[in-house]
């Protein structure tokens, strides 16, 4: 049996707006590798289109064709698009598929129906948790797809440019990447669908590494900390989708489909002056409604994210994917977890540095924060690209400037957005005691 590892090297790949981390655990008998996420929704301008293929090839080389595990924190494109394959086998996912992979870890929301009974009583006894949630995830994907399709139709033609950009970006990130999802189901010797408190299934492949699953909570766990309850949270997305399908039909239609075919109508454009104001407000408001819709589903999808804490060699490494506060809340309601997180050594900054993904109460308690000269200083890893998500005016820009300032001042920050152009990755090595 292999002994405990002596250290870990973390490779943060330059994938633009996305996440891709390769963890190399150093064992006396040889290195073992764990890949956490592999996706992008926007590669840096100076990069070629084959970036993801080059990253995949580098991963294959670095791990020597063998990965102890693959973690796909959630199904957003910026975390899994790299797993997509191509018909001619030239996709980055085809390279990953060649690798000998041990365990694939995903959140419980990804479990196929057939695996339902293996999930333990927490989920399998609660039918709503799985079947409805999955149908709801599908409706969310379809809703996002519909919004993206509508960007070129009459309904959104006159929408403000910045809203259309945001709709396009968030929408595309939430469109189902079927090829990547299917590849993730195919690869790996075993599959684990994890939730708060469950086993991540990596212990055998990575001896000496304790992997705690802090999130996502199951619906039942979530309900225990909520004072209020929604009766049918999953119904909404089917409802939204139905509406959008109708909306798309009318906004694409020419003269052949009219709500009132026999009634004269003025075809948009320069409207009579007495109706211009309200018509403009309505059209703009419509695009904001769509933005509200895709933002809500984006948040829900983020909150299916795995939050993993690795404890190894006296160090703690925290990888929360894109989990936002609603996902974090269950874990942080437990004092023992709050205590456990206080001396984290490595923190992968949540959700590319957005405002809501690094809970303030947790950040405040990180004991190893400190100035440049402090010993045993917190290491932070950020994978992001400014100018893609959110706006500074409403403090929603990603990465959030105030968080970035804190990270720079109080931790040893390694961010992909500050890497030299052309560099494929940066690495950090943490030695264990």
């Amino acid at each position, binding site marked *: 049996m292999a002994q405990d590892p002596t250290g870990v090297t973390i490779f943060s790949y330059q994938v633009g707006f996305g996440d891709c981390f390769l963890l190399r655990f150093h064992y006396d008998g040889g290195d073992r590798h764990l890949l956490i996420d592999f996706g992008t929704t926007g590669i840096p301008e100076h990069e070629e289109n084959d970036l993801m293929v080059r990253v995949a090839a580098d991963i294959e080389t670095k791990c020597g064709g063998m990965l102890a595990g693959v973690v796909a924190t959630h199904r957003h494109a910026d975390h899994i698009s790299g797993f997509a394959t191509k018909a001619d086998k030239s996709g980055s996912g085809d390279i990953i598929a060649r690798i000998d992979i041990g365990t694939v870890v995903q959140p419980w929301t990804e479990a196929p129906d057939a695996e339902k009974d293996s999930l333990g009583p927490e989920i399998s006894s609660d039918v709503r948790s799985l079947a409805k949630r999955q149908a709801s995830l599908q409706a969310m994907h379809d809703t996002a797809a519909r919004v993206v399709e509508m960007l070129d139709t*009459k*309904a959104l*033609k*006159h929408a403000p440019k910045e809203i259309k950009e945001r709709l396009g970006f968030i929408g595309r990130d939430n469109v189902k990447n079927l090829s990547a999802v299917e590849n993730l189901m195919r690869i790996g010797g075993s599959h684990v669908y994890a939730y708060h408190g469950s086993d991540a299934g990596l212990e055998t492949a990575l001896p000496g590494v304790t992997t705690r699953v802090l999130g996502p909570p199951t619906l039942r766990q979530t309900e225990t900390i*909520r*004072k*209020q*309850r*929604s*009766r*049918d*949270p999953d*119904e*909404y*997305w*089917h*409802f*939204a989708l*139905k*509406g*959008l399908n*109708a*909306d798309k*039909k*009318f*906004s694409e*239609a020419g003269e052949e489909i*009219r*709500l*009132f075919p*026999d*009634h*004269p*109508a*003025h*075809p*948009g454009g320069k*409207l*009579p002056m*007495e*109706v211009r104001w*309200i*018509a403009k*407000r*309505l*059209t703009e*408001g*419509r695009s*904001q*409604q769509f933005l*509200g*819709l895709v933002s*809500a589903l984006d*948040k*829900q999808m983020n909150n299916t994210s795995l939050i993993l804490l690795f404890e190894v060699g006296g160090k703690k490494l925290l990888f929360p994917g894109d989990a936002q*506060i*609603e996902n974090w809340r269950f874990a942080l309601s437990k004092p023992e977890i709050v205590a456990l997180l206080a001396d984290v050594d490595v923190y992968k900054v949540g959700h590319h540095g957005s405002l809501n993904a690094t809970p*303030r*109460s947790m950040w405040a308690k990180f004991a190893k924060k400190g100035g440049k000269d402090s010993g045993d200083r917190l290491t932070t890893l950020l994978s992001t690209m400014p100018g893609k998500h959110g706006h500074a005016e409403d403090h929603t820009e990603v990465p959030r400037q105030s968080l970035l300032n804190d990270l720079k001042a109080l931790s040893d920050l390694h961010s992909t957005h500050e890497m030299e152009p052309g560099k494929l990755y940066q690495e950090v090595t943490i030695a264990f005691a």
Partner: protein
Amino acid sequence: MNRLSNTRKLTILAQDPAVRFGGPEGPLAFARVEVPAEELGPGPTGYRVKVVDFDASSQLLYKDLIYTSDAPRPKGDPFEFAQEGAALEHRAFEDRLLANPNFHAQNVYAIVMRTLARFEFALGRRVAWSHGGHQLNVVPHAFAEANAFYSEQDHALFFGYFPGRSGKMVFTCLSHDVVAHETTHALLDGLRTRFTEASTPDQAAFHEAFADIVALLSIFSLPEIVGAALSDSAEPPNRDGEVPLIDAERVGLKALRGSVLTGLAKEVGSELLDGDEVHEARGAALRRSVEMEPNKDYLSMPDYQEEHHRGEVLVAAFMSAFLTLWDKRIRDLGTFGSKYNRDMVVEEGAKVADHLLTMAIRALDYCPPTDMDFGAYLASLLTADAELIPEDRKGYRRVMRETFESYGIDLPAIGCHVEEGTWCPFVEPADPPITYARTNFASMLTDRDEVFRFVWENRNALGISERVPIEVDSVRSSTRQGPDGFFVKETVVTYVQTLDMFAAECKVLLGFERPDGMSTKQRLEVFGGGVIVFDQYGRIKYHIVHSLTDKDRQLRRLEYLVDMGEIAPHRGLRDRFSALHMARAEG
């Protein structure tokens, strides 16, 4: 002599295209309703409402409805169905109307105006929209979506349309209850603009519940619709020369709840629901409300902390009181053997609905302007009624109070008269007394600055802190006629105080430890305020307060905001109402 009429009658759908007299083969339930008469511009556009038939999905502007003076019917209802010899054409007539966007425009215009007129009648004055403008935009085919909402920032009501499961298009602008509901949001926002702010679960629930209550009672005050619900023949009610009879057992309390209220709620829902997939649609919510049996524990159950579900409790209590009162009045009617005259039963229902609707709206004048809760609404309802009808001979107030209490809605612990359940009349303190001398009574009827001067001058006597900014946000005079023919004149003033504080100051300023999950540096806005009601002599009659320093209320509010993640500034109004379903999705 050529007198100008005050009202005009317009044809509308009594409920929606799903409601027919006497079953699916019967004629559509149309109604002709009275609205204030006015010279309408294209749209129609009137002095309070501007209908704009612009469709954002297809980017089309439908040709306006124009009421020309040389129209064939001088009274100006282009969609009136000529009665004589037209029965055979009924279906064709119905199809023509439903396919004509101009009829949809008339339908929304008439229901919005009727609802507005109902508020103005109840309050005895003009009622303003909250956006400050005079006309509310009403867009009957705003977008292809199963949604309809009020947007303050757009000065508008938007109604969507969507294909139902049968493939037939469903128009929310043709549902009476939807139009009345959304109009009520706009009117309530004009009367109590802070009720849309993040506050207690009750306040969040109140907007929805109140809009549902007004919508339901508006429908019940149309004899056509109640008649349709009680009718088991294929003929419309009121056929000439016959007294339509109905079995006594069909109008008992239980039967009324089952056949009429639930039946109506089902019909209200069926058009919008159009299948079983949209469980969260309003029809389903209404059905739940009317089927809820009394239970004092609803408001503390987790299921009823969410604002939409919580609102159902208030609707349930109100509609239950309505049924009890209606039943009581039916029992007082004469019988034909074991049968009642159905038209009289319907009329009594419409009377009760009408009285309760007036009461529901008048109560708003006695509601505190901030942090609304159901108990305060009950006290306001009882006060509004007692002011006009001091003797509760018909037992409206007793039934109201008992029914509300059976649903766990109790009167506020402070400020209420124990026996009457009304707000306590104002008692002038001895030291310092109220000073009336330095303000001008005539100005006090309309002028916010004059009233502010009065409030400032008397801040100590009224117990209002001078350290927290005070804003008199409305001064409204009302004249209401009581059943004795005499008028009750009041001037209703609301003021609000907004305390800007840090969470660390909770203990010192509000008297409790800051709630869990709130950092000491968290900036908070805490509200207090009150209603001062002046009588016809300009003396204070009521001072109804939600004090800044009410520990229990403030703690309840802050805990709720933490739980909802709404401590940060709240969303705009467009979001607030359009996000009705989204809030449920974030569960």
